[in-house]
């Protein structure tokens, strides 16, 4: 007879384990307690001793797969056991009543004919009279027969029962005068959560407000006036770029733990360098700005700190480090904020970057940025200096590990060669995703960028 072995709870309350290796193959003969494989739980890697002496007939999960406790992982042909038993493909629980050993950790085998069914409880609606008139609870019997309907049956019972919630939430609802029966739970298996109650209460309030509006308009309350008087408030539908930006920023701000660091540097030499280049014929056709220099500095810095150019792939449980830099540039457009990126910016010299930046800005201003230009960014720069701002705490473009904000270049009294001189100074603000970038990498990166900005010759040292 074929005997299946289900993954047990190997460590006091574990729900799953990963198959590490199998030491046997289909067709192998195994002895009782012979080690047949290894599984890794959240607590330890453990060896699995064979529960039977027999022949392996099936291995249902490959090494590397994570298996829920209770799933069949291997099956054996056990000689001499139940020769008169029904065909192996027949569901076990339809077999004639026979004691199935209870495996510890995932409860008793469901027995279709004997499973207890909970009696439906009766609940009076909130605020109703005493439930004396309510019909007495009739024991709700499970639908006859097939174990296949067990799940549906369980759900039916849940629905027939009082609304699923937790004691604190029940109290909240009671305090707020809300009947939980009127709510649809959003939690696991329809559990009514605190949020559900609060949201429901909010909806009721709004409804009440709306209902109050009609009389209000006649009495002329401030609230009613606010709604109709557009001179005091403008209500704009949330859509388009604004909606997208909002969603992206919320997602980024609440998934990636942001850290922001600041560095104020004397960029006088860098500005002189740019001025010199502007006079050169080769750069006559492009516009050179601090942003151009920063773009190059970022590419150099990323080469030394690749974690700033990585991506947190939570679904795959992997960190993706990019060997290319698609440098996003935050651009204010009539449609709102867009962050097109320069593909493979690491391959571009200062001239190439300047040209690409010019083209990117022109396209964005014209509102012609293509979706492809917005996708696939790996690091972003936002130039808040053009608005006369010194520093900020930029929010990461979703999926990226770092964003650099360039402050305004200001003539500032600054320490220079032992005295105070009027120098051109700017502040760099770097936000990074602390899941991917530690303080050390972030700080080194920012220092590198600052070094190039203050003395472009440092670029030679960073390569």
């Amino acid at each position, binding site marked *: 007879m074929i005997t299946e*072995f*289900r*993954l*047990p*709870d*190997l*460590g*006091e309350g574990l729900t799953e384990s990963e198959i590490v290796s199998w030491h046997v193959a289909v067709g192998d003969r195994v002895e009782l*307690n012979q080690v047949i494989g290894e599984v890794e739980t959240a*607590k*330890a*890697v*453990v*060896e*699995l*001793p064979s*529960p039977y002496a027999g022949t392996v007939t099936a291995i249902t999960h490959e090494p590397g797969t994570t298996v829920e406790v209770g799933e069949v992982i291997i099956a054996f042909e056990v000689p001499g056991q139940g020769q008169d038993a029904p065909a192996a493909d027949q569901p076990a629980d339809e077999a004639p009543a026979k*004691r199935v*050993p*209870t*495996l*510890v*950790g995932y409860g*008793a085998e469901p027995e*279709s*004919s*004997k*499973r*207890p*069914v*909970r*009696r*439906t409880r*009766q*609940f*009076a609606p909130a605020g109703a009279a005493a*439930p004396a008139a*309510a*019909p*007495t*609870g*009739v*024991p*709700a*019997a*499970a*639908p*006859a027969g097939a174990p296949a309907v067990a799940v549906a049956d369980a759900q*039916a019972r849940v*629905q*027939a*029962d*009082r609304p699923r919630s937790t004691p604190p939430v029940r109290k909240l609802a009671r305090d707020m005068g809300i009947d939980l*029966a009127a709510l649809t739970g959003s939690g696991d298996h329809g559990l009514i959560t605190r949020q559900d109650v609060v949201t429901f209460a909010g909806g009721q309030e709004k409804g009440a407000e709306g209902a109050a509006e009609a009389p209000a308009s006649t009495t002329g309350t401030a609230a009613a006036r606010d709604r109709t008087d557009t001179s005091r408030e403008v209500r704009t539908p949330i859509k388009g770029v604004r909606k997208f930006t909002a969603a992206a920023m919320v997602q980024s701000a609440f998934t990636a733990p942001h850290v922001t660091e600041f560095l104020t540097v004397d960029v006088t030499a860098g500005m002189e360098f740019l001025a010199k280049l502007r006079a050169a014929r080769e750069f006559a056709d492009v516009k050179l700005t601090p942003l151009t220099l920063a773009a190059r500095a970022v590419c150099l810095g990323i080469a030394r700190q690749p974690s700033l150019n990585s991506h947190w792939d939570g679904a795959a449980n992997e960190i993706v480090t990019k060997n290319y830099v698609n440098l996003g540039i935050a651009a204010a457009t009539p449609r709102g904020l867009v962050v097109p990126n320069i593909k493979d910016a690491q391959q571009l010299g200062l001239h190439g970057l300047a040209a690409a930046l010019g083209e990117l800005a022109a396209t964005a201003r014209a509102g012609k940025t293509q979706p492809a230009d917005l996708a696939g960014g790996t690091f972003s720069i936002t130039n808040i200096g053009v608005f006369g701002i010194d520093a900020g705490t930029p929010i990461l473009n979703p999926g990226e590990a770092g964003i650099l904000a360039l402050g305004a270049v200001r003539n500032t009294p600054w320490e220079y060669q032992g005295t105070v001189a009027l120098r051109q100074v700017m502040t760099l603000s770097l936000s990074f995703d602390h899941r991917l970038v530690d303080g050390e990498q972030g700080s080194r990166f920012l220092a590198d960028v600052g070094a190039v900005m203050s003395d472009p010759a440092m670029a030679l040292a960073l390569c």
Partner: protein
Amino acid sequence: MLEASANSGASPQTGIHQLIAADGTSVADGELDPFVADVDDAQLVRLYSDMVAIRRIDVEATALQRQGQLALWPPMLGQEASQVGSLRALGGDDFIFPTYRENGVAYLRGADLAGIMSTWRGSANTGWDPYKFNMATPQIIIGSQTLHATGYAMGLVLDGKETLSIAYLGDGATSQGDVHESMVFAASFQAPVIFFCQNNHWAISEPVGLQAHVPIAGRAPGYGIPSLRVDGNDVLAVLAATRWAAARARSGGGPSFIEAVTYRMGAHTTADDPTRYRGVTELEEWGAKDPIARVKALLQGRGKLDDDAEAAVARRADAVAAELREGTINLPDPAPLSVFDNVYTTEHAILDRQRDHYERYLAGFAPTDGTTLEGSRS
């Protein structure tokens, strides 16, 4: 490593009493020798057989846990000499207060194997009748059994009995307040209690050296309790030390403390991964001091363990394993209401009410009889 954990069972000069060295040679010990002068080779074979049998219990129970038949199992691998030697020094009237790891002691005391396993399977709170075997049920709370043993021993004095109680404890338990209180009371009332501490070097993941900068046995004299530090992997030394303590207890000498220096070769429990904290050489080091191998070497050296004797020992172990497996897998699931049994010896109003409520709750689970679902939410 600190001194307390650096002491090895094979080096008597570190102050550890020993009668059988790790390589199986006999060692003389003036203090212990008189207590085992009567132990002949036939008795030594029985001690050997006991150790092999309880090691087999451990292996089989560990496998059953991995196969989903036990919820948890606390391995005793490596501690067989401490369990066998101490138990075999006791009389049937002496009362044992074990920890959760003395499952070998329970088996040797006569408890049914399936009964012992029922606790670890989660199908019973109690694996045996404590009064039938004069052995309390496994104590999960660390160290509190020392209070029970001390109190019991104080009662023995009041009753004028000549028996004793023994509390098993581990090295970690010696950090518990309960153990301190027990030892203070035991000394104050000169109670006939043996504190049998198996220093297996790890309090789950905490090395003994962290909480005992000097050998644990050195603490007892501070309470006025004489102590012995013995090689816990030497069944004969453990037997002798426990007989020494028992003789003191029976003759009105009061409490004694034994530190059996051994090593937990397995995990703390099957839910533990010792590779995360254990030193890489520890298993090798302690494997060389195996309690069973040394007795085997001693007996073989004397020509007292022939193939027939070995086969008999193996047959016993096989039978034990088979009985344990069969008994465990076929343990009946307990009836829900049995949870109220064995709580109080007499009627208890609050418990009766709870039982009544639970009974009615259970009655709410109607048997399936094909009727349709009615009377849902009104």
